[in-house]
């Protein structure tokens, strides 16, 4: 069996196409990004090597701290929102007794289909000073009227919500697909044991979908760290750069200030942050993987 699954030629054939495309169109550019981040370069002329100057400037930049804070908030908000709602809705939809489940499944996914521009246009209309939300509060005599997107400290939460709202549908679809792939006799067994529906899911679905959840966690967190488009459309990074992220810093430096080297330094830091997050998540989930493997080994021995 080991020989069967260790077929060198097959492995090579399986891995090669993806690896070749990745190295050519992703990895080589990434290496260049890191290399150029040590230079003074406007994107066009011959770059001047300046050592770690860009990084020193970056770490003392007022906006750098703001960007990191924003990324963290963004990542946390979208992770909680998406994983919570995606799980709840996925479980609801998977219940065969639920009426209109097909319709609901399509509905939750709709925001994912629309382009970011459309979704952001809609939300900026809703959240504007005299937008729908404030009008509703006014009509109901609530004192929640706010400058939703113009607040120095709070705007980032609102932007994070918009992003979370749009992409929740995708994690939802993944979890639904995951639940479908769990054999239904597992649930029947649980039901016979007297578990309620919710309990059955807590005991079966979530542990069995650990890989899917790990993956959802990674896309939410890193999605937060590299966020850009929503800020660009909703606030333009404002007021006064208070909704910037590192990607935004990169964009601003590279294209508005023609300081490509500095921009790439910001991008490099962001990539490193994402990698760290991924490694940490892999580390946290590793124990569980090992446990599963051990269990399997035990079962095999018994058989």
């Amino acid at each position: 069996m080991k020989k069967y699954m260790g077929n060198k030629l097959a492995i090579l054939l399986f891995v090669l196409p993806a690896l070749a495309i990745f190295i050519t169109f992703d990895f080589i550019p990434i290496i260049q990004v890191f290399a150029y981040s040590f230079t003074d370069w406007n994107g066009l002329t011959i770059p001047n090597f300046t050592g770690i100057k860009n990084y020193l400037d970056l770490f003392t930049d007022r906006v750098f701290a703001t960007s990191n804070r924003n990324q963290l908030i963004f990542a946390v908000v979208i992770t909680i929102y998406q994983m919570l709602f995606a799980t709840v809705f996925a479980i609801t939809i998977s219940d065969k007794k639920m009426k209109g489940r097909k319709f609901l499944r399509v509905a939750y996914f709709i925001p994912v289909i629309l382009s970011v521009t459309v979704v952001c246009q809609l939300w900026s209309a809703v959240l504007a000073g005299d937008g729908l939300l404030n009008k509703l509060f006014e009509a109901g005599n609530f004192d929640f009227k706010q400058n939703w997107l113009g607040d120095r400290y709070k705007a980032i939460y609102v932007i994070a919500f918009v992003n979370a709202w749009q992409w929740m549908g995708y994690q939802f679809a993944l979890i639904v697909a995951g639940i479908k792939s769990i054999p239904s006799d597992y649930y029947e067994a649980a039901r016979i044991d007297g578990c309620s529906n919710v309990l059955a899911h807590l005991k079966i679905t979530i542990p069995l979908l650990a890989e899917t959840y790990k993956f959802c966690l990674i896309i939410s967190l890193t999605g937060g760290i590299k966020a850009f488009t929503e800020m660009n459309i909703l606030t333009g990074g404002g007021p006064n750069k208070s909704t910037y992220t590192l990607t935004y810093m990169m964009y601003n430096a590279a294209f508005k200030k023609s300081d490509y080297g500095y921009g790439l330094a910001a991008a490099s830091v962001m990539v490193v942050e994402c990698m760290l997050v991924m490694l940490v998540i892999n580390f946290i989930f590793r124990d569980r993987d090992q446990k599963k493997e051990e269990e399997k080994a035990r079962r095999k021995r018994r058989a």
Partner: protein
Amino acid sequence: MKKRILSTLVCLTVAATSIIGCGSKAPVEETGKDTAAAETTTEAKTEEKAEEKAEENATETTEASGDKVTLSIYTQYADDDTKVPYDYAVEQLKEAYPNVELNLIVQAQDDGQTLKTLAATGQLPDIYQASTDIINTFRESNQIMVLNEVAQSTGFLDKLYDANKDLAYAEDGNIYAFPFSGQEYVLWYYNKALFEENGLEIPETYDDLLNCIEVFKGKGITPLALFGQEGWNTAAAYDVIATRYAEGGIKALDEGKASITDEGYVNAAKKMEELVAAGLYQEDATTTNYDQASEKFLSGEAAMFINGQWYIEDATKALGDNVDWMFYPAADAASYEAGKAVFSGGGSASGFAVNPDSANAELAAEVAEFITEKYCEAKVMYRHNPLVAIDTGKEPDSEYPAMMKKLSDTLPSITATTKFTWGLTNSTFNDAIQSESQGLVSGQFTADEFVQDIADTME
């Protein structure tokens, strides 16, 4: 069952590859569809050119034999202010240069990201619209042609108004782009009807202005609609105040002739802070885009508006006699009078530039000059904007709007102007003033922070 799936997959892959394959490099067949004439007929040439460039084959194209030459041009083509001149220029070009065809690449509103990437990868179009920032960047990498001789031989320099000479020359004394816009001005527009209905005089001092703010706010009218999502508008909002305290405005700061910590600039920032607190701008100004703010003003929901003089045409169309512009208010009557001679805004070194590596660079330079002239003519004739770079000798197709007449009468007495943000040469300062002034507008950054942050950045 399983086999079928596998074979379908293989079939699909093969089919996809063949579709992709034939669609691209195969010789272009004549579609016979004349609808997208400009697009379809120029394809073959563009593609050849792109390939040649990629392979760095310096072989001459067949221009000498009188064949059609296609020049790619990267410019704006979206609203009337950009479409009308372009269409007019293309039409005129057909007569003057029958063998030249233009392949239009519509400019993206992306802070030069596309153009810079095209330049970095050697795909620069033959002719492109270059801003001050682009000129300065491309100059360093020799990707912008020196047009001194062409400007001389085509007579462009003779037609250029004296006042606009400085718009043609870059810092190093060379001409890199043919400007079509002349000197431009930031105007403080107001809705005459709204002022009259509320028994208000045109504000001359900030105290008057504060009074107006109070009255308008009481009526539920936005005093001044700002499109603060765009940094240039907030910078202009600061500049119209700064010029009342220090004549140089943001231009002097850009050139390093003044410092943000100077008394005038600090006072201006404090005054702006005060006006923001009083509610001069709408609360969500920093997330308002141009169209939102403009619609507010044109529909009478806002009493004032700050924009360039190019807005005269649109404002007059919508509001007729009810719209006018005023001199910027100042601290007291004396500085109000003195300030009448100083305007925010000004010209910027920008216009049509040429790619020196183009296979037809010489021809492209001539065509760029020709198009520039036609742009100016179209702007005078059809957009009623006499503030173009050159003397066109053309008359508008109808009378100038009243606001434009008033501006023309004022022009001789204007002694100083500043810059629009796109005319600034120090990109660090440009970035700082745009975002910091936005901070002031938001009401959540103090004047002290504003001064401190800019001072820090400029060090």
